[in-house]
Structures are given as C-alpha cells and as structure tokens.
C-alpha cells in the first residue's frame, strides 16, 4: 500500500461557515437566513445535529496525564456520541498526546463533539481535518490461516496490497498492513477467504499534508 491522501467527503448541504476547525472562541460568522415570519408556513424549527451525517476525522491534542483518555471516552459516552475509532499516543512532546477520533454525524453534531471536548481542561486543541488533504493510516495485524497449499496465494495478495508478512507458522501467517480504513477493509475481505484466526487494528491516525500543523495552546513550552 502506498501512502495515499484522502480528501474528506464534503457534504453538499454543509453550512457555509467557511471554517471547519472549531476554535474555542466559537464566534463564527453567522449566515442569517431569510426572515421566517408568517409567510414561511408550515414553520418548524430545525433540531440541531439531525442532518445527514458523514464521516469526520477529529484531531484532539491533550495533556499526557493519567486519566485523560478516560475523560475523553467518558464524555463521548455521556454525551451519546458514537465514535468509530479512537487512536492515541504521545507526540514530539512527552507531556502532550494526540488523539485521532473518527465518527459519523452532521457538521453541527460533530462541532458539538468538538465543543464538548474543549470543555475538558486537559484538551488543548480540537480540529476537524475532514476537509484537509491528509495522510490517514491505521495499522492492522491479521493472523491468516495459511497451509502449504494456500500460503503462496496469501503471500501474493499481501504483496499486492503492500502488506508485510511478519511471522510464519506451520498453518498461519501474521500480516501487517498499514493504510486507510478502506484499504485495510479491502485486504481483510480478500484474505478473509482463507480464514482469519485473529485480527487487531489500531484505529485511524491522521496528519494533514504539507507544511501546516495542528497548532495548540501551550505549544512550544
């Protein structure tokens, strides 16, 4: 698998607020809709967060302290937000960790997630990178059934997908694969026919392409 940029799917009905990174000071420019008033019947008020959802990738920069992962996970559960994956590890600074969170929802719902995350004292920055050109990778280890008769075929598929075989046993191999969620899903589907004995995936990690970085409060100290 080659490094492959994924560009976020842009939902066409997205509010044109122009900005996807949710700054703490959420004084975003408002687009004032046309006056509702008597003419617009039957008038109903839209309920926020109930629009058509799509996949979002959030980066959360947090203090690397005991319990911070728990705070984030607890908030997600308590606020009834469904996350698809969450990957965490420390950054170039040992006291700072970075999470990649993938989830589905409309823009308002995901902005609400970001704003709730900001309320955690240990959260330094939240950025929705769904619209940025980016490298999005996760790592999977897949233990595939592979006998003398099927091993060659398994290896061929793995090679085709730029995966790596990192362990060979009499009746199985461990395949290591990195790539986007979709790419790994595709590989899993292909080797699935041989029989998957065990699998573990890290969840997606992300980095925006080019010179820009996710800036955060308290950086560079």
């Amino acid at each position, binding site marked *: 698998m080659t490094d492959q940029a994924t560009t976020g799917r842009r939902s066409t009905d997205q509010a044109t607020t122009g900005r996807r990174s949710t700054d703490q*000071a*959420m004084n975003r420019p*408002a687009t*004032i809709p046309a*006056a509702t008033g008597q003419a617009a019947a039957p008038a109903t008020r839209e309920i*926020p967060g109930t629009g058509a959802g799509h996949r979002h990738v959030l980066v959360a920069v947090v203090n690397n302290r005991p*319990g911070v992962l728990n705070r984030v996970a*607890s*908030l997600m559960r308590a606020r009834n937000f469904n996350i698809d994956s969450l990957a965490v590890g420390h950054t170039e600074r040992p006291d700072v960790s970075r999470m990649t969170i993938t989830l589905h929802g409309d823009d308002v719902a995901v902005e609400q997630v970001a704003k709730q995350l900001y309320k955690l*004292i240990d959260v330094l920055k939240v950025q929705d990178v769904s619209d940025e050109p980016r490298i999005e990778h996760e790592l999977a280890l897949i233990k595939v059934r592979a006998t003398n008769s099927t091993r060659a075929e398994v290896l061929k598929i793995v090679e085709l997908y730029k995966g790596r075989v990192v362990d060979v046993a009499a009746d199985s191999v461990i395949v290591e694969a990195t790539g986007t969620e979709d790419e790994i899903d595709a590989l899993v589907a292909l080797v699935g026919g041989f029989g998957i004995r065990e699998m573990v995936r890290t969840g997606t990690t992300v980095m925006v392409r080019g010179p820009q970085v996710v800036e955060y409060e308290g950086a560079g100290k």
Partner: protein
Amino acid sequence: MLHESKPRGRTRIGADVLCEGLRRQGVDVIFGYPGGVLLPLYDVLGDYPELRHVLVRHEQGAAHAADGYARVTGRVGVCLATSGPGATNLVTGIANAMLDSIPMVAITGNVAAALLGKDAFQEIDITGITLPMTKHNYLVRDANELPHVIAEAFHIAQTGRPGPVHIDITKDALQQETQAPHPDAETVLAAIPGFRPTFEGHPRQLRLAAKLIDEARRPVILAGHGILLSGAWDQLREFAEKTQIPVTHTLLGIGAMDETHPLSYGYMGMHGWKHVNRAIQSSDLLIALGMRFDDRVTGKVSAYATGARIIHVDIDPAEIGKNVSVDVPIVGDVGRVLDALTPLVAARQPEDRAGYFAELADWRRGSEARSWHGSGAWRDGLLSADYVVEQIGAAADHDATLVADVGQNQMWVARYGGFRRPHSHLSSGGLGTMGYALPAAMGAAVGRPDKETWAICGDGGFQMTMQQLGTLVQEHIPVKIAILDNTKLGMIRQWQELIYSGNYHSSHLMGPDYLKLAEAYGIAAFRATTPDEVPAAIEAARAIDGPALVHFRIADEQNVFPFMPAGKGLSDLIEEWGGADE
C-alpha cells in the same frame, strides 16, 4: 496532656496546606462531615479558627449547603466528606451543582495511596464517579501537589461558566510533611493552557445582533441564570430599558430583574405563565442571555418560536447550537457582552411599541386572572398553596431568600414568590433534586446572615433531608421552614391525574407530626390549616430568633397550572382541568 490541641509550631503537613489554601482563596466556611481518612485534617482544623466548619447531618446536605452558599454570595462553596460512603453521599449535591453551573469545590479524603485500587476499607473510585459531573477533578497523592491543585481548582470552579470541581486527597498526603509553597495566579494560569474562556463578544457578532434587534417588531429577552452568575442584572435592565424589550426569565433567571419592573414579563416554560409562553411563540426575535434552551423551557423544539430568529449569548460555546439552532451566536460573559451591545442598539420609547405592549398587557391580564387564588382558598375553603407562597414572599417585603424544593412547591414558589432582587430565589433547576431546599437554605443563611432565609418544601422533599434540623440547631442557623403539606408527592399525583387517568400509585405519602418533630429538636413550630391562619403563622416564625418551622396543611389535590405535557410544544399549555377553580 492528651486532649491539648497541637501547638502552632508543629510541622506543616498536607492537611495544613489544604487549610492554608482554602484561606488564601477567601473561604470562611466548610460544610463537612468527618471520617477515618479525614482525621488528620480534623486534627488541624482547630488551628484555623477563620475556617468555620459546619457539621451537617448527611453529606448530601453538605454539598447542597455549599451550593446555597455559593448562589447567594457568588463565591465558591466548599464541602468536605470522607472516603467511600461519605464521598458517594456528596454525589447528588455535586451533580446538582454541575447542572446549575454552581461554583463549588468538593473535597474528599481517600485511603492511603498504597491501598488505592485494593478495595480497601471505605475505598471507592470516587474520581471515576465524579468525572462526568464535575468541571474537573483531581486525585492527589502527594502533599507537594496540594497547593497548586487547590489554587487551580478554585480558578476553574469560578472562571468562565462556573461549576463544581472535586479534589480527592489520600490520607497519607494529608499527613505528609511538606514545605511546598502556594503558587501565584500566573503559575496557575500557565499550567492550564487548555482553559481560556472567552469573555468578550466578537465585534462582528455584536453588530449583527444590534441590526436584528433594531429591526425586530416583537422582540423578547430570555434572561437566564447567566445574568445572575455574571452579576449582569444592571446591564440587563439598562439594555431592556434602552430597547424597550420585555424581559422573560427561566426558572434560574428569576431575580435577574425586579418582577415589578414594567418591562419584566414573567416566568417561561413548562409551568410558566401562559402570556409569557405566548409572547415567545409569537416573537420575531428571541434574545437569549445566559440561558441554555433546556427542554423545560422550549417544549418540543420543532414547534418552538417558529417565527423567531435567535440571538444567543452564552459563555459556554457548547451551549450555542446544542438544543436549538441560532442565527447570531455570541460567546462571552453576558455582562460584558451587554456592555458592548447596548451602545450599538437604537433607543426606543414605550410609545414605539404601543401596539405590541397593549397586546402583551392584555394577554397578561387574562392569564394572571386565571391561575390565582387571592382569597387563599382553593376548593371547599381548603388552603391554597399559591396564596401561602405569596404571603411568605410579601412578609419580608420581597427581600428574603426563598429556597424552593422540587415538585409543585417549586413551581408555586417560582410563580408566586414575588422576586425583586438577585439571588433571592434558589431552586434546583437542572437536576430537580428533592431534598434540596433545607440544606441549601442552610448554606444560603450562612452566606447571607443579613437576609431572612426560607426553605419552602413539599412534605415529600422535606422528609428527604429533614435530618438537617439538627444542624440548624447546633449551628444556630436561623432558617425558616415552610412545609406545604398536601400528604402527597404532589407533582407525581398531578401527572397521574392529568396523564395517567388518575391511577394514583405510590403518590400518597404519610408524614410525621411536624410540630412534634420540630419540638424534638427544640425548634419553634407553627401550623396553618386555613387561609386566615396563614399570616399569623408566618409572622410567628419570623419573630423567632433562630430556626422555625411552619406546617401549612394545604389542599391535597391542588394542581399547578399551566402545565405543558411532556413532548408537547409551548403552545399546548393546559391551563385548567375539571373546573375553573383550579
């Protein structure tokens, strides 16, 4: 000598650091209850006579008292409990403070660090429990960290949107010798780069808001708790007077504006005044100031004020666009936002809104006449609760602090208490915690000894926390208690009557002889069972120098109207039921 208190010259331990830290934050009272792991602290508390310790009768009451203290003083309330059951008893009070944005620091002891995670005696993962119901929490195992944690906790509790912060301290940290100094404000700030609330509204947003305000023909102000938390009642009044926009308020926004002010229009929502909800439903611009569009305020969101644009001012960005979509969001401290906004809006005269005001006045006359028992009697001459509440409010010329419990009594207090000054009305809004009134009134009376303080409870709620009568006596806290006794869990009974076709399961409630109960504690007590006995009973209680209790035997089956059934919209208020005498 065995009982001699330790001399000041002894070594400084974690417990001292805690006391010093509290003093440095200006704390003068702690509502607490001791236990094994807190004994090192109680061993030194006597060395800090500036820290008054109020010994409660149950830790839930300690948290509610700290909450009541915070609401009336605007300062951080402090409560203290031991590990395990002491800590879990605090939880309801912490949750209550969280949902109502009350600045509070809750302190618990825990077992020695080496025993953490071992299911030691009275060990519970209390920081795990309080995590989702606090603004932030800490587990401290090293006394050297305590000075910083205390300063940070107080900063977080009272900065931005206030809320409770919990500090759990292991017993060995309380005992540990330490020389750690207390940090200055700058050090505290530098350690929490992720906590930088926004105070000033964005200028562009302010201009957009001003434009909408100038164009609106039927604007309504929705004043919430934020006005009180921000101390912005003067700014609210000035803004309303300049623009001539009527002010409605949420449950916790009561007191944000004097109810007798010509622009004060009343209490909104599920049990709010029909004229208020009508004004909101027919508005073309809602100006929401420090409120959060709670479901008790909006009813069914899809049917909420469908012809109105919304300007929403709140210090918590996450509240904006959470429950309703808004047209102009303004993140900031509502007082500072109004300081900047008022000069931008056009001045109006009452005559400019003559038609609008005439209609509003007409609605108001109608709805007020419908739900009011000025004679004091409900059906068959039975004592009417709204009259009792009105009489209590009037007795101290609307200057007393009235602390409501939860249920029908809470709605009667909100509707008929007659509030004229900020912080004169306390209520458990978000959590709706029965048993809140008495302990919260205790804290309120300690925080504002210059104000007469009433706890107004249903018989159900009173029985939940009545053990605090002992605290009132021992600590000489002069709370006046009004029990609105309908021998029912009234609000439950009301729903059963209105929604569950009169299937009254478990809503009838027996109680003690409240006068004898008070007498057992040495508390003066009075009773009123008919309207004409009410004023004298209130005056008798007021004349007592100390706590007093009045048992009002009200009608069993009086309902609170209007009433918005769950899942309905604000326009679907039920105003009467089975006869006009409701």
